[in-house]
């Protein structure tokens, strides 16, 4: 009996904690459907009727869909580049013997530990020299070299790919690159998918680098656009519109998460049990 009560208390505590994770998002959704006056006078857990008005106020000020598509334009190619080039690099490091392999591995480990603020100023300076300020190129092309993901996929390849399989392909006369595309990529795909989802979310949420690189308002990615919201609107009058803006930025990620939470969770678990 005592056991059951304790277990009950435990579940209540776990549910309360879960609610604390969800409540701010629920309030966000509720408030985005309520008028500014309603929000400032009382709180409610139930939606109101002002979604359309808030929408008009918000989009009068800024077209968030522009930011939304800009973010897609950056995050999708960056993720694809990361996925493909991390896989081929990791494969070469895991399955071939070549000079410099172990040196490269060490350099990658060192760069995984280097905080990104260390390169921020040099990176900006480089983009100035290459005349890439206000361009998407420095937000996309560097995705080809993702040390952390190469590190993970290298371990992953070593544990999932057998040399015998590669030998068989070679005896059949397949070229090295064909072997990679036809045999290795499919076998590595669960690991690549896991890492890609993480990379996509990282790209999608990235703030500091787009903030320093992009000047033109209509080029801004979603997080940068969101951060300009209260610069012009009167918070007091339009809180509903601000909640709606935040909701528009959050809901797509929540939808993605509800479909692939399994992969996301396993990518974090993988980070923990690397060695």
């Amino acid at each position, binding site marked *: 009996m005592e056991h059951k009560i304790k277990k009950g208390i435990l579940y209540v505590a776990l549910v309360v904690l879960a609610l604390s994770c969800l409540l701010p998002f629920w309030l966000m959704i509720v408030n985005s459907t309520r008028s500014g006056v309603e929000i400032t006078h009382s709180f409610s857990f139930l939606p109101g009727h002002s979604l359309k008005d808030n929408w008009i106020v918000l989009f009068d000020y800024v077209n968030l869909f522009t930011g939304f598509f800009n973010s897609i334009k950056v995050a999708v190619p960056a993720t694809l580049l990361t996925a493909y080039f991390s896989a*081929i690099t990791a494969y070469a490091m895991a399955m071939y013997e070549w000079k410099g392999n172990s040196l490269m591995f060490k350099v990658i480990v060192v760069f995984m530990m280097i905080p990104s603020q260390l390169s921020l100023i040099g990176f*900006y300076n480089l983009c100035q020299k290459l005349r890439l300020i206000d361009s998407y190129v420095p937000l996309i092309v560097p995705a080809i070299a993702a040390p952390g993901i190469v590190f993970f996929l290298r371990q992953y390849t070593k544990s999932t790919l057998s040399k015998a399989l590669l030998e068989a392909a070679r005896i059949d006369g397949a070229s090295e690159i064909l072997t990679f595309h036809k045999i290795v990529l499919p076998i590595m795909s669960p690991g690549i998918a896991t890492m890609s989802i993480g990379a996509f979310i990282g790209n999608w949420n990235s703030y500091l680098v787009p903030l320093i690189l992009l000047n033109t308002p209509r080029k801004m990615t979603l997080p940068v656009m969101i951060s300009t919201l209260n610069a012009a609107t009167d918070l007091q009058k339009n809180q509903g519109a601000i909640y709606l803006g935040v909701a528009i930025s959050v809901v797509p990620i929540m939808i993605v998460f509800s479909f692939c939470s399994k992969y996301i969770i396993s990518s974090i678990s993988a980070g923990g049990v690397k060695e």
Partner: protein
Amino acid sequence: MKAFSIKDLMKNRNNAAYLFVLPFIIVFLIFNVYPVLRTLFLSFTEYKGYGDPVFIGIDNYKRVVGDKFFWRALYNTIKMWSLNIVLQLGLAFLLTMVFSDIKYKVRALPVFRAVYYLPNLIAATSVAFLFKTLLDWKYGTFNQMLLTMGVIDEQVNWLGDTKTAWAVIAVIQAWMWFGNSFIMLMAGVQGIPSDYFEAAAIDGAGRWTTFGKITIPLLRPILLYIAVTSLIGGLQLFDLPFLMNGAGGPSTQGAPSGTLQTTVMYLYKFGFETHQVGFASAIAYTLFFIILFVSIMEFKFIGGKED
């Protein structure tokens, strides 16, 4: 040059590896290695963002060391990180204990895990905006809820008061990251053979003894990993305090009274607002050496002896 052709190179199939890693290496050298070295170079110069950098030796570093605002920013950052890591790891450990308990056999781990992780998924900019609006002094929903429940008598200026603002940031950080730590710890626990726990149970070890003597020591590598990555991330804290400061819009001033000004905000101020790029670079490297030092300490303390 005729001797060197792709065809010759491909004769030894291990040479294919060079072609495979080539794109990575080129981009890595340009966008990862060069910026790090360029920042190092600029840290020894006076540079306004245009024209040519003028070499001035270690003057920038002298200025960083003597700059009380740099140390204040570092203190603020560490203060926020410390409260955050205590809450984050404390909660993650409690949850790991609950979900790995062989007596209670708590169900629905995947559901709880996903919900606890959700806040980590949302862009820090959106989280910042959401909480800034919810915590609004006069009209925020959070104060209204507390007033209705009778917890407080009058609105608390969460982000405007020097006593609460930094703690609010730390709590939000912990809220964003405890799920992540929990998932990693849980993955580690699931990797421990169940015989260990059964043996401990047969020996009559209690819950806390099992946790202290078996679980924690075996989780040490993961704990180290969390501590180091959290430190590297935590000392780079930028988005939340930059956007949630007591001032109106995004600002590097860290209002109220500079208590929210972190080292990266300080770096940003000089690198991208007042254009003292050399000084900002020196701040970046000083911060790097501090992170390196603390990471080594973490390795010593948590990593312990290799046995």
